[in-house]
């Protein structure tokens, strides 16, 4: 897919930081508000896809390699499953960080409250892992499809 006009590219440049911040907000507040790893990851990936459509898949592929996205996806999956295994001394998927203090270890206040971010133990970390996997997976799907359309437009000659 070729590059779009300068108006589209400027608007996508302008919108990208807000979309990324909103997506990471949804991922990080997954244990407090609606949303979580998958939803926030889909929002961030849609921001990346907007840049891909605006700039064309070849230029986007020169910034973000499909191999690196694959590595990020594996890091997300391995982080999720290793967090599950780290609590194995009690049970699989045991929340070993909750209520211990430290990282995400505060005990949430009772009654109605605006939501304390530093709570819920391993859940925010698992949301981050799932979000990383979803970002890398959805972005690499669209990137590979864009590169394939470029490849077939060239007549399938050049090797990418």
């Amino acid at each position, binding site marked *: 897919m070729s590059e779009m006009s300068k108006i589209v590219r400027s608007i996508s440049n302008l919108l990208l930081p807000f979309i990324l911040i909103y997506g990471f907000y949804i991922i990080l507040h997954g244990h407090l508000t609606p*949303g979580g790893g998958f*939803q*926030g990851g889909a929002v961030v990936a849609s921001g990346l*896809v907007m840049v891909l459509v605006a700039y064309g898949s070849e230029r986007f592929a020169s910034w973000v390699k499909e191999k690196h996205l694959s590595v990020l996806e594996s890091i997300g999956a391995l982080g999720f499953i290793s967090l599950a295994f780290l609590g194995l001394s009690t049970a699989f998927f045991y929340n070993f960080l909750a209520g211990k203090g430290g990282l995400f270890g505060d005990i949430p206040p009772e009654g109605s409250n605006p939501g304390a971010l530093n709570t819920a133990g391993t859940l925010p970390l698992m949301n981050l892992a799932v979000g990383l996997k979803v970002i890398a997976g959805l972005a690499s*799907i669209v990137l590979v*499809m864009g590169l394939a359309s470029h490849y077939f437009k060239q007549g399938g000659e050049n090797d990418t």
Partner: protein
Amino acid sequence: MDLLSLVHIILPLLIVVAAGFAVLLRDLISCTIALAAMSLLLSLEFYILHAPDVAIAEAGVGACITTAIIILAISMTKREEDER
């Protein structure tokens, strides 16, 4: 009749109208935009049905990523649908 039940009637009708446009239009890019509009209205419907989780997922995946994938697929073929 309060406002919310009115919205509950109007929004499904708008979804059906957008889906009809997606089927009936000849230009495939316009069909894709109609499909994205349908997805966005569907996410609004999920939100007023108290499913904000599903609404965010629908807005992210349905309205943006499938649109991009379909536009990439159209760029590999023709833009206009064949006349029957």
